[in-house]
């Protein structure tokens, strides 16, 4: 690799370690954070996530090549990892490291945005259902039951069948709209329990609007499970997106995503295994990081007996 991307890579690593170290120092007196950092996997997970986020944001700096460029379709295809191409090149002679870095934008971006959509819808529906109770609650929860009954991928496949080529935004919306059901149940539970408390009736008598009550009391109480649920959901969405892209239904060429990269390399596992291996490994490591961080957060918020 040339100088600038190498320097940028080192820089990214340094910044990552710095950020996590800083976080650790600043929070070492807080109980929850201490419990969090007591998991070595969580600390590493955090580092990996921060690194890939920086990589995604600074992709143009880190990627030595244009991810979609095909500089030598005859001479440079399927070359093994080397100094110029640290992770090798793929079937189309594109640099895999560059595609990986830019692909991180797509994969991580889809994961985060879809989770945002899912959480927003889930929190809203759950809060409404739990707070208003009555028939609205009934209808909404039956909707949740239906949503949970259909395996997510079949819902996605049915929706995807309506488009020839799915626009990225639509894909994000679809992923989000198929993943809010469990969160809504969580929030509903919190809303129900808060609603039942006497101070709520008092507040309502004083004229406080339901939205205010939900915002000031329900949401903070539900914050912990929502955050944990969100963190774990990102990993899930990334796996789903990778699967859909692998089948050819998700992200469309030439946009790189880690799933499409695995699909590209499928035909030459024997000849050039690195083309599928690295993107697949990256997905695994990043999803693993989300899961590790999510687990540790769960412990941090709500320690379980064996931790004490």
């Amino acid at each position: 690799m040339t100088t600038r991307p190498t320097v940028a890579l080192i820089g990214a690593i340094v910044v990552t370690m710095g950020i996590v170290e800083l976080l650790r120092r600043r929070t070492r007196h807080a109980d929850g954070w201490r419990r969090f950092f007591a998991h070595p996997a969580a600390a590493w997970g955090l580092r990996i996530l921060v690194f890939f986020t920086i990589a995604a944001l600074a992709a143009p700096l880190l990627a030595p090549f244009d991810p979609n460029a095909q500089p030598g379709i005859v001479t440079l295809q399927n070359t093994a990892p080397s100094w110029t191409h640290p992770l090798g090149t793929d079937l189309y002679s594109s640099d895999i490291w560059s595609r990986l870095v830019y692909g991180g934008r797509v994969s991580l971006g889809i994961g985060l945005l879809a989770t945002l959509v899912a959480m927003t819808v889930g929190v809203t529906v759950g809060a409404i259902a739990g707070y208003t109770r009555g028939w609205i609650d009934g209808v909404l929860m039956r909707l949740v039951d239906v949503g949970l009954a259909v395996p997510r991928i079949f819902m996605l496949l049915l929706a995807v069948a309506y488009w020839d080529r799915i626009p990225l935004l639509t894909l994000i919306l679809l992923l989000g709209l198929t993943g809010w059901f469990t969160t809504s149940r969580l929030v509903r539970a919190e809303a129900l329990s808060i609603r039942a408390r006497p101070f709520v009736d008092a507040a309502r008598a004083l004229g406080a609007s339901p939205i205010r009550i939900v915002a000031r009391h329900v949401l903070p109480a539900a914050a912990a499970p929502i955050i944990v649920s969100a963190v774990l959901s990102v990993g899930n969405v990334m796996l789903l997106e990778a699967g859909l892209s692998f089948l050819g239904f998700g992200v469309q060429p030439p946009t790189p995503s880690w799933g499409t990269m695995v699909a590209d390399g499928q035909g030459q596992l024997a000849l050039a295994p690195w083309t599928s291996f690295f993107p697949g490994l990256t997905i695994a490591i990043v999803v693993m990081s989300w899961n590790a961080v999510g687990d540790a957060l769960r412990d941090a918020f709500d320690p379980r007996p064996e931790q004490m």
Partner: protein
Amino acid sequence: MNFRVSLLALSTLPLALGCSSRGSCRGDFCGTVVFVTANNPKTLLPPVIDNTGARDIDEQLFLRLADPDMTTNVVGDANFVPRLATRWEWDDPKTLVFHLNPKARWHDGVPVTANDVAFSFDAYRDPVVNFSARNSLTRIASVTVRDSLTAVFRFKERYPTAFYDATYQMWILPQHLLAQVPRTDWLTATYGQHPIGDGPYRFASWTPGQTIELTADSTYFEGRPHLRRLIWKLVASPAQAVNAMVTNQGDALDFLGPPANVEQVKKTPGLSAIPYPGSNYIYLEMNERANGDSSKPHPVFADREVRRALTMALDRQGMLTSTFGPYAKVPMGPIPQWWSIWDTTVRTIPFDSADAARTLTAHGWRMGADGIRVKDSVRLSFEVIFTSTSALRMQYARLMQAQWKTVGVELQIQPLDQNLVQERLRSGKFDAALQGFNSDPTPASGIVQHWTQGAPEHFSHWVNADFDRLVSDATAGDVTKAKAQADWHAALNIINADAPGIWLAAPDNVAAVSSRIADVKLRPDSYWALAWTWRIPADRLIDRDR
């Protein structure tokens, strides 16, 4: 203690299972060949089949009057091998008389007669049946029955490939089984799922989406086939087809594709990589009418110069080497390597992206802010459709996308199910299509069917009267070989100049066949056609052969 004993006992079970089953077949008439294919047939009724998988199977189930021999010279009748017809003669230059083999039987025992031949001709020509090569039968005036074993073909004119037209397109169909089936229902008829033919193999079973099995007809009149069973096994993708071959789950794969696969097969003991003259070619067809509205011209493709510029912007040789390695050539028109009209002196469009860019700009396509050219607020952007099961076409699409991007052209890639591609082509709802064509031995049917005005497989709406005239001259009655060659040369020059399509690759085909099979001959026009003459020597039988 008891637990350990039973564990020991259980562990011997695999040994017992591993002992191969001793089948009952010995000698010269055993053998099972598994053909691996990603082409899923939907029906096996010959006039309505729609893919090469079905064609390969029908090749063993049904008979033509005569087949081409290995030279595949289809001019005249000297290079044809008797099949259903044991001999033939010309009463006059426009009347051809076939004498059927009296020993020919349908697999239900009924003898094959000239009535079947007449019935078949009527069916193949029927617009309701909509046989895809119907046009090639237009010069046959009639087929009549002189007696139960004699069929008479009368032609409207004398022309060199008359015998070919009379025999090649039509597998003879059983009148006694199909006459009562309404022609409108032939597409979904149950006969297509359980065909009864007269060929060397009988239909045995069909598991939809998985396998089709044929067994040898031991009473077949040309001699009992040596291979007892032929099985077609369906895979999800060509990559898995190669996998299946390499792991000994398949015995024959007709098209290996990328050089990586060829290398892998060469390294596998027990498999032979057999190259044979390529009979197919890949091209991009461009729709000159608007996508979905044939009354309007296409904003991009209606302009001949733009089509030429688009062709010029592509490094066809580079793409070809990247995809096929040394196993293909860039064709100079819609022709495969094995056609005699393959002519390297034809004027083709060179690769010159600078010139292409200049031409595009000169024709009003200015570079836009996002790197894509614009003209009258229309972006130079279009969509290419192709069959999703073809990794090869996907690869080409990606390569073309990147190359065109550098000159400001945006290609959107749309893989679709095979049926959907066909539907879009026929209804004109497409911009461009990546097509492949597996050719007949003669250019006449292929080129006439695909590129002359009004032809059934012509979807681009390209019209050139000179081209049509030259093609019709080249295939006319008394044309000499020299004149035909000159006419084809001129026709190819025209079709290259007008560029209604971009001729991408004419692959050398490399097939993978298990080395234990002897007498393997691959006929260039239909690779597995001679499978009924293959055999597996008794000393090379493996488990599944018995």
